């Protein structure tokens, strides 16, 4: 469902009386006003990130006098945000890849293969969607501590290896694909893995795209679990690094804004390019609480 892009053709309002025209103008003014309010904080943070510290606390010029990338250099090197960015990227890419493989394989099995207990196991998958992180905090942290996985990438990757909403999304998508394709592959003597790999995966493009985008964005932005598990400065992700920076250097505005821009831009770019997959995925994940 491409809600953000274009959907139902606009139903034009036929008559245009002066009152109506005035109303339209007011509506547009209101819309642009709200959009402006939405954008101004982001704009302001980009502007500040290009300023010097003195300029950032002096006045409220919308644009920097002498735009410079100094704050970005400082943030990335002196304040270690290069490391945090690399950590975020590494974790988001690894976890997204694991989810693509496991969710598509599992989704295929739940949608197509017959095995005893399949429905019960699938209910279990749905049940995990209802278990809040707050209940899991202590037991999961205790287990990771026992296994020496606190302050390691592995600990975080392990608990995010497969997300139930992704498995659910893939299964639902596979259910919509007609069985004819598989029957043909079966007649050709293809096994289950080959059918999955050569027939099902190529047909699942939109679902795979939704899983990729939602998982990457979710992991890139996540704060709660990285804060709990990655308790080692060299393992911090961007959100944890930002939180830590706020606590220590709370008035280094240009550097803080530079770090925030670094955290926002990748997701913004992905969003601009893949808008419609975001929406499809979120609508499909709407079953999640």
């Amino acid at each position, binding site marked *: 469902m491409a809600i953000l892009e274009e959907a139902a053709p606009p139903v034009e309002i036929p008559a245009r009386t002066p009152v109506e025209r005035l109303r339209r103008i007011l509506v547009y003014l209101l819309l642009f006003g709200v959009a402006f309010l939405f954008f101004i904080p982001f704009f302001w943070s980009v502007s500040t990130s290009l300023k010097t510290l003195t300029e950032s606390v002096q006045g409220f010029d919308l644009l920097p006098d002498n735009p410079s990338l100094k704050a970005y250099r400082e943030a990335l090197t002196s304040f270690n945000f290069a490391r945090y960015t690399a950590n975020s990227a590494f974790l988001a890419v690894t976890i997204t890849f694991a989810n693509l493989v496991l969710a598509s394989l599992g989704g295929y099995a739940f949608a197509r293969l017959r095995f005893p207990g399949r429905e019960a196991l699938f209910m279990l998958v749905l049940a995990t969607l209802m*278990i809040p992180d707050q209940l899991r905090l202590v037991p999961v942290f205790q287990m990771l501590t026992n296994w020496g996985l606190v302050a390691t990438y592995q600990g975080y990757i392990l608990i995010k290896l497969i997300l139930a909403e992704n498995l659910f999304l893939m299964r639902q998508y596979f259910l919509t694909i007609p069985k004819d394709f598989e029957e043909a592959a079966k007649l050709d003597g293809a096994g289950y893995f080959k059918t999955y790999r050569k027939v099902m995966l190529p047909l699942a493009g939109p679902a795979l795209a939704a899983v990729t985008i939602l998982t990457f964005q979710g992991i890139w932005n996540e704060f709660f679990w990285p804060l*709990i598990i990655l308790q080692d400065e060299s393992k911090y992700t961007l959100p944890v690094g930002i939180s830590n920076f706020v606590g220590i250097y709370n008035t280094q505005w240009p550097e803080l804004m530079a770090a925030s821009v670094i955290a926002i831009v990748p997701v913004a770019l992905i969003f601009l390019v893949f808008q419609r997959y975001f929406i499809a995925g979120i609508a499909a994940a709407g*079953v999640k*609480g």
Partner: protein
Amino acid sequence: MAVEATTGGRLESARSARVKEAFVGYGFVLVPMGVFLVFFIFPILYAVYISFHDWGVLGKVSTVGLDNYSLLLEDDLFWRAIKNTLYYTAGVVPVQVALGLFMAVIVNNAIRFRTFFRAAFYFPSLASSAAITAIAIYILNADGLVNAVTGSNQPWLGDSDTALESIMGLNAWTTSGTIMLFYLAALQAIPTDVYEAAAIDGAGAWRTFWKITFPLLKPGHFFVLVLSIIGSLKVFDQAFIVSGGSGGPNYSTLTAVVYLYQTAIQDVDFGYAAAMGVALFALIFTATLIQRLLFGKAEIS
């Protein structure tokens, strides 16, 4: 596979094909089910078990029965955290839902730059909560942009009278985009002929909205409301970052999950934190269950 099976062996090979299919099926779901069992299902039992103990960083110290729970009932800070969380939820949910509905109705119209407005309204919902909070801290500080524009010198996040309210405003704004999306999906499910009928009857836009659109969105209202309530009860990121994890100033931003984090990670009082987790679970689970029962199958997709 045994394509060349003779008539006599056909039954045998059909059975072995079924066995093979089952094995492959289990193989494909093995890792996901393992992760779910170990990190989701088992932790429920483990959390309850831990909550019956005095439990430190090295593990079990002693069995205390329900002591952690009765301690919880007498813990002023816990009640303060619950009060803050409920106050936050009561304030954020109506604003967030109203704002989301308003934006959805607007961008569902035949307006120019519709795609642009949808993207603009939705974007804050998917930007990093930590980055957005950092920007809010910058804009809301005593010498920040908001005070410069309004001519005040209020340290919004540093004053216990305004800190939680500022976070409420921030989150109502930045998360309303998701609500907008769900409403948009619900709006597009309404058949256009009901509007045509209303137009023929000469109903104005205002009346059409309240008499037709709003009632027809009923399934959407419930879904969105519960989603918003559950999300609000879990508020953590913004309160944690704004207060540096302390829940301050003067406990004004101490939400239930921030207090849980402090108890578990900072105080390493696992038994007590587990009891708190179970109590919060009861709260959130009730809300989730209501959502599931009302909207068992995906209304939205």
